[in-house]
C-alpha cells in the first residue's frame, strides 16, 4: 500500500502535518511519502492511497480511511475524481508536482530527472539554444520575451555569464513559482544548468523571496543533493533571499538587490545580457521558464511547439483564486478560453453568486468582464483586451466585489511598491490612489474619471520600468468595462456591490431580530442597543461598519445597503 500526503504550503496550512503525525502515531509500520502540491488546493489536506485520492481530511478521517484500506473494509468516504480534474490539463512544468518527494533526488532521477542535462552535454551551445528557440518558449515571468533569443544575446558576450532564476514571485494572486519550488525544485536547477551550458556560465543564482521559507528549504536540500551526486558538474548554484520589494521582480532591480543595494531599476540599455550583475553578462529567467527547459530538451522542440497557439507555444500554469469553487493550480495548453478555465477547471463561482470579472496579470494586468470570457489565453489575445498574461495569477471576483475598490486595491499596492525613482510613477500613482480613495469614500467628483485617464496615459509612457508603465492597467480596464460602477459611486454616492465600507449603512430588520443580543455583546463599537428578547437597533453615530454583526446574526436580520 502506497500512501502519499501533499506537504506544500497550502497543504500544511490546511493541517497536513497534523494528519501526518496522527498517521505515524496510529500506524507505526505504514510508510507515508511526502509530495508537493498537485494543484487541488481547494481540497487540501490531501492523501492518496495507491490510486485513490481523498481530500478535505481531518486526522480522524485519514485514520479511518487507512484503516479501511488495510483491512479491506467498505468505505463511505467520497474519492476525488482526479482524472476529471486533470482532464483538460497538460502538465509540463507541473509534471512532477504532487507525484515525487521534492526532498528526494532519487525520485526526480526516477522520472527522467537530469537526463536532459546529460543530453545537453552532448550538444553544442548553439544546438541547445536553437532547440529552445524552435520550441517557441516565451518568458513566463510576465513580459513574454522569447527565451531562445534572450539566451543567444547573452551567449554572444565575452566571458562567463551569471545564470539567474527569478523566484521573486511578487504578484499578489500568483503562487505557481512557490509550488514548483516546493514540489519539484530539481527541474529548475536542471534547467539552469542547461542554460549555463548553452550560454557559457558556471554560476547560478536563485533569487527567491523571503516569504517562501519552505521553498527556500527545499531548494537548499535539492542543491546540496545535486552537488553531492556531482550532477551539476562545474555549475554552482547559490540562493539569494529577497527582502520584500515587489519591484525586484524587474531584472535590473533584481540585479541591484543581489549586489546589496536598494532594488531600483535602471535605464536599459545596457541590457543585463551585456552588463548585468557586477557588470558581467547576465541572463535572468523566471522559475516556470526554467522548469520548462529540461522537458523541451528531453522531448524536443517540436513536441513543445505542437502545443498552444501560433504566437504562444506550450502550456501555462495558472493560479486560480478568489470567488471560485476550485481554487488551485492548473497547467493548460495556451489558447484555451478564459471561460473553460473559470467554469471548467475552476468549477464556477462559489455560493451561487454571479461572475463579475477575472483579474489576470496582477497589478500590471487587467480585469476582464463576462462578455469577453471567450478570450483565448495567450500573450497576444490578453494584451488586446487590455490585460496581460503576467505571471499567470487569476483572481476571479463575483458580484459582491466592487471594481472601483479593486482598482484602488492595486493602486495602493503599486504606490506602496513604487521605488520612487521616477516622478510619474512615484507621484502619479499617489495622485491616482487619492482619486480612487475619494471615489470609494463617496467624495468623488464628475471630473475625476477624466483626470484618472489623463494621469494613467502619462504614467504609462513616462515611467522607467514595467512597474510604472503597467500600474495604470487595473484602472484603465475597470474604466473600460465597468465605468458604470465608477459613475454610481460618483453621482449617487453608492456602491452597487456593497463593498465600499464608507458608503454602507447597516440596519436591523425589526421583524427578524429576536433580541438574542449576540451582536450587541460582540459589537466592538458598542453601537447596538435594545432590550433582551426585543428587536435591537444600531446607533449610526457609533457604527464603524465593520460588519461583524452581520457575520454573527443567525436570523439574517442585519441588512446592509
Amino acid at each position: 500500500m502506497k500512501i502519499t500526503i501533499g506537504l506544500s504550503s497550502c497543504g500544511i496550512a490546511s493541517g497536513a502535518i497534523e494528519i501526518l503525525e496522527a498517521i505515524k502515531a496510529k500506524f507505526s509500520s505504514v510508510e507515508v511519502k511526502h509530495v508537493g502540491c498537485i494543484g487541488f488546493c481547494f481540497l487540501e489536506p490531501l492523501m492518496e492511497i495507491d490510486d485513490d485520492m481523498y481530500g478535505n481530511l481531518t486526522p480522524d478521517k485519514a485514520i479511518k480511511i487507512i484503516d479501511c484500506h488495510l483491512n479491506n473494509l467498505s468505505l463511505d468516504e467520497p474519492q476525488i475524481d482526479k482524472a476529471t480534474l486533470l482532464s483538460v490539463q497538460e502538465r509540463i512544468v507541473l509534471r512532477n508536482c504532487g507525484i515525487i518527494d521534492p526532498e528526494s533526488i532519487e525520485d526526480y532521477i526516477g522520472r527522467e530527472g537530469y537526463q536532459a542535462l546529460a543530453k545537453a552535454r552532448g550538444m553544442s551551445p548553439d544546438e541547445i539554444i536553437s532547440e529552445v528557440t524552435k520550441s517557441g518558449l516565451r518568458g513566463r515571468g510576465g513580459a513574454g520575451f522569447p527565451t531562445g533569443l534572450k539566451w543567444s544575446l547573452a551567449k554572444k558576450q565575452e566571458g562567463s555569464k551569471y545564470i539567474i532564476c527569478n523566484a521573486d514571485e511578487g504578484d499578489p494572486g500568483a503562487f505557481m513559482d512557490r509550488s514548483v519550488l516546493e514540489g519539484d525544485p530539481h527541474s529548475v536547477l536542471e534547467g539552469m544548468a542547461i542554460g549555463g551550458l548553452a550560454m557559457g556560465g558556471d554560476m547560478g543564482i536563485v533569487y527567491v523571496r523571503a516569504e517562501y521559507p519552505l521553498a527556500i528549504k527545499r531548494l537548499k536540500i535539492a542543491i546540496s543533493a545535486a552537488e553531492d551526486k556531482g550532477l551539476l558538474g562545474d555549475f554552482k548554484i547559490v540562493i539569494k533571499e529577497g527582502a520584500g520589494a515587489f519591484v525586484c521582480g524587474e531584472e535590473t532591480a533584481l540585479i541591484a538587490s543581489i549586489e546589496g543595494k536598494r532594488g531600483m531599476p535602471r535605464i536599459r540599455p545596457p541590457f543585463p545580457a551585456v552588463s548585468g550583475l557586477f557588470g558581467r553578462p547576465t541572463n535572468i529567467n523566471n522559475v516556470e521558464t526554467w522548469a520548462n527547459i529540461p522537458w523541451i530538451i528531453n522531448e524536443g522542440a517540436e513536441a513543445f511547439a505542437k502545443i498552444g497557439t501560433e504566437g504562444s507555444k506550450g502550456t501555462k500554469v495558472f493560479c486560480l483564486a478568489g470567488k471560485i469553487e476550485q481554487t488551485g493550480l492548473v497547467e493548460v495548453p495556451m489558447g484555451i478560453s478564459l471561460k473553460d478555465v473559470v467554469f471548467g477547471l475552476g468549477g464556477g463561482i462559489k455560493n451561487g453568486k454571479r461572475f463579475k470579472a477575472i483579474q489576470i496579470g496582477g497589478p500590471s494586468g487587467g480585469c476582464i468582464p463576462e462578455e469577453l470570457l471567450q478570450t483565448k489565453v495567450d500573450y497576444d489575445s490578453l494584451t488586446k483586451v487590455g490585460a496581460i498574461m503576467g505571471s499567470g495569477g487569476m483572481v476571479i471576483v463575483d458580484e459582491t466585489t466592487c471594481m472601483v475598490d479593486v482598482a484602488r486595491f492595486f493602486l495602493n499596492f503599486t504606490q506602496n511598491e513604487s521605488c520612487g525613482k521616477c516622478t510619474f510613477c512615484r507621484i502619479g500613482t499617489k495622485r491616482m490612489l487619492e482619486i480612487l480613495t475619494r471615489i470609494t469614500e463617496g467624495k468623488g467628483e464628475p471630473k475625476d474619471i477624466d483626470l484618472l485617464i489623463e494621469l494613467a496615459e502619462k504614467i504609462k509612457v513616462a515611467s522607467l520600468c514595467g512597474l510604472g508603465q503597467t500600474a495604470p492597467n487595473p484602472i484603465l480596464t475597470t474604466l473600460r468595462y465597468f465605468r458604470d460602477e465608477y459613475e454610481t459611486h460618483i453621482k449617487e454616492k453608492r456602491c452597487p456591490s456593497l463593498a465600499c465600507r464608507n458608503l454602507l449603512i447597516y440596519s436591523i430588520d425589526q421583524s427578524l431580530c429576536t433580541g438574542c443580543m449576540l451582536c450587541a455583546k460582540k459589537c466592538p463599537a458598542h453601537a447596538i442597543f435594545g432590550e433582551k428578547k426585543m428587536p435591537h437597533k444600531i446607533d449610526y453615530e457609533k457604527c464603524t461598519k465593520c460588519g461583524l454583526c452581520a457575520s454573527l446574526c443567525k436570523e439574517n436580520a442585519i441588512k446592509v445597503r
Partner: protein
Amino acid sequence: MTDFTKIDEILSSFEDKSCLIPILQRLQEEYGYLSIQVLKRIEEKTGMSGAEIFGVVTFYAQFRLKPQGKNMIKVCHGTACHVSGAEKIEESLRQELAVKGDEPTEDGLFSLEKIACLGCCALAPVIMINKKCYGKLEQKGIKRVLSEYK
C-alpha cells in the same frame, strides 16, 4: 547594548559589501529587529556609509527598526485575500489584541504587520504566524487561532 561580540562574529562571516542584505537578514534574525546600535556597528566594521545602510534597510519591507512581539502575525493583503475580506480579518485581529500600527501588544506576545502576498491565495484569506500559515479564516475564528500562542 555594549556587547558587540555577537554582531562582530556575524559580520566577519560575510565577505563583502554585496552581502549587506544577508548581513541585515542575519542580524534581524538574531535580535528580532535592527537597532540603531546594530546599524552603527555595521557602519564601523564594513566602512559602508550609514546613509547607504539605512537606505537599504528602509527600502525593503522585511527590515524592522523597532522591536517586535514574541510572535509575528503577518496578515496577507494579496488580491484574493482582499476580495475575501482581509481588511476585516486584520480589524478583528487588531481589536482582539488591542494593537495599533506596528507596536507590539502590551504583553509583548504579538506584533502585527500587513504583507503584500503570502502566495497561499487558494486558501484566502490567509495569515501567517511566525512561519505557520492559517487559511480560509473567518472573523469569528480569530480567537481560536490566537489561543495557540497564548
